[in-house]
């Protein structure tokens, strides 16, 4: 698998240690990640959650096709309603609408289930001790667990976008995309922006995943970790909507999640996006550090 050739080792190296050196680090790490992803994507519970992610845009598309009058003037209130009228004119906007709507609750919930389960699930099943005596290595295991959460977040967001895009193409007219700022870009440009939006939303979910990983390292009960993640997400969103908390709002984990709407304007205002990515990065670093601090020193008694 790995093509890394280790230099000949000095004598007296145990065969197993020699084998590790020969196989390198990356190959076995990827093999472990693959095993982790297989475990996640073969669980009925997770597949059911992914099915919900695919199903909601389908229902959304049908509902809009039936109810929204064509050629709305698009002077509604928030981001969501701005998209609502755009969808009628261009099916691509169904993907933006679906991501916006699902970012408040459904996507965080799906990511929370997998992230909260990551370590706590292994601990409660007792498999954590068997992974560690293999030895998986605590740092290695934690990095693989987080990488799997990131991949899962990305796939979740891609599924939502793909499902919405297919419904949008099937039910609404598709063509050059008129952005929120009024400029029109070719369809390819619109799809590229959609890709960036998906990546941004995935990064936001990966941030929630880091919080989840940290919480998951603190307990042996996956349900407790999942619930705690959701409480944090919802509490953050509520606080973000109470004007009296304006001082703390920029520091809330969810505050910048919808900053991707600047990707749908021309020219793209990067200030908000930069703030958003910075917030996401800082949260990921902090919570991965907490997870490592806890997990590297924990007595595994489960």
């Amino acid at each position: 698998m790995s093509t890394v050739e280790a230099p000949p080792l000095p004598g007296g190296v145990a065969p197993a240690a020699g084998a590790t050196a020969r196989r390198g680090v990356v190959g076995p790490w990827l093999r472990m990640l693959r095993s982790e992803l297989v475990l996640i994507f073969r669980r009925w519970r997770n597949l059911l959650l992914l099915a919900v992610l695919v199903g909601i845009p389908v229902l959304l598309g049908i509902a809009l096709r039936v109810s929204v009058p064509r050629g709305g003037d698009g002077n509604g209130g928030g981001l969501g309603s701005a998209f609502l009228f755009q969808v009628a004119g261009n099916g691509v906007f169904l993907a933006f609408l679906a991501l916006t709507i699902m970012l408040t609750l459904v996507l965080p919930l799906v990511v929370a289930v997998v992230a909260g389960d990551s370590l706590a699930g292994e601990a409660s099943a007792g498999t954590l001790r068997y992974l560690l005596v293999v030895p998986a290595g605590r740092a290695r295991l934690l990095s693989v667990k987080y990488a799997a959460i990131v991949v899962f977040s990305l796939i979740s967001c891609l599924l939502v976008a793909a499902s919405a895009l297919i419904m949008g193409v099937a039910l609404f007219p598709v063509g050059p995309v008129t952005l929120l700022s009024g400029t029109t870009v070719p369809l390819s440009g619109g799809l590229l922006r959609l890709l960036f939006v998906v990546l941004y939303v995935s990064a936001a979910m990966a941030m929630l995943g880091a919080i989840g990983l940290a919480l998951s390292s603190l307990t042996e009960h996956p349900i407790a970790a999942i619930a705690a993640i959701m409480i944090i997400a919802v509490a953050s969103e509520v606080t973000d909507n109470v004007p009296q908390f304006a001082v703390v709002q920029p520091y809330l984990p969810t505050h910048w999640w919808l900053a991707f709407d600047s990707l749908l304007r021309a020219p793209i205002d990067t200030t908000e996006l930069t703030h958003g990515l910075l917030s996401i990065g800082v949260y990921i670093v902090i919570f991965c550090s907490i997870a490592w601090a806890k997990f590297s020193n924990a007595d595994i008694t489960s």
Partner: protein
Amino acid sequence: MSTGLEVTATGPAGDTTAPPVATAGVAVATHGLTKRFRGGQLAVNELDMVVPRGAVYGFLGPNGSGKTTTIRMLLGLVYPTSGRHELLATAMPSGAARVLPRVGSLVEGPAFYPQLSGRANLARIDAVDATADPGTSAARVSAALERVGLLAAAKKRYRAYSLGMKQRLAIAASLLQPRELIILDEPTNGLDPQGTREVRALIREIATGGVTVLVSSHLLAEVEQICSHVGVMRTGRLVFQGTLEQMRARGAARVQVRTTDPERASSVLESLGLAEIRASDGEVSAQIGEHAPEAVNRALVLADVPVAGFDTPRPSLEDLFVELTGEGFDVDG
């Protein structure tokens, strides 16, 4: 099987001054290993354990005596409060990545993913091993399953396995790679006699390959037949460690005299220089030591002690064990 390495028997007071041993001949060595859990509970207290290479070491003690905590420390799952230890002459837990691939283990019962088959579970364990060759994974998984007799049930979900099968799958997981040391924590726990026999046969087979085996149990009888060495834990301390012969020798034979005149019998035994004389109604007993039983009997009779019965019983291993582990020992499991 034994490497001929002398393991010192340790007294109950913990006078464990193990002689400096060549580390190459030692599979497991702990030095003052201690674990105090948060909340102050002292689970393992100043443990000095030596398992010679090639030994089958029965790690005995009642439930709650600290065996599992010790094993978790040996494997780097639980960090000691103080003390240190080596596995296969490698310091732990710093050398875990180097040494644990050569150590197979079963810790506190089997634990696998219930939704996966036996084979998929072993494949998962193998995928986590950085030293494992992915090219031979399938073959090694099959070989391990075959060795524990689970090949026919390989595709069955773990959830549907019987307890005995679960236990054997856990042993199979420890056999995925060639090992130098196998640590099995209560491998027969909860098994019926048939399952117990199977697991015991498996351990014996593993050991014949020269692999060092550390097997814990709260039942002496379960491991007595397969062990070369034993270590006995009691409330966090190692109260005995040595070969099975050393343990047997530790049980001094006693002389037991049934008589209607225990007083006179006592004084005769005392004059002979016997130790630990205990007199009760109709019976006197003492440690016989180096004295010949027939000489003791003759002395009694010559002193006009009416001897109605005379015996020199040796305590069984079980008796010694109960004596070591003290009250509250869960003899019936």
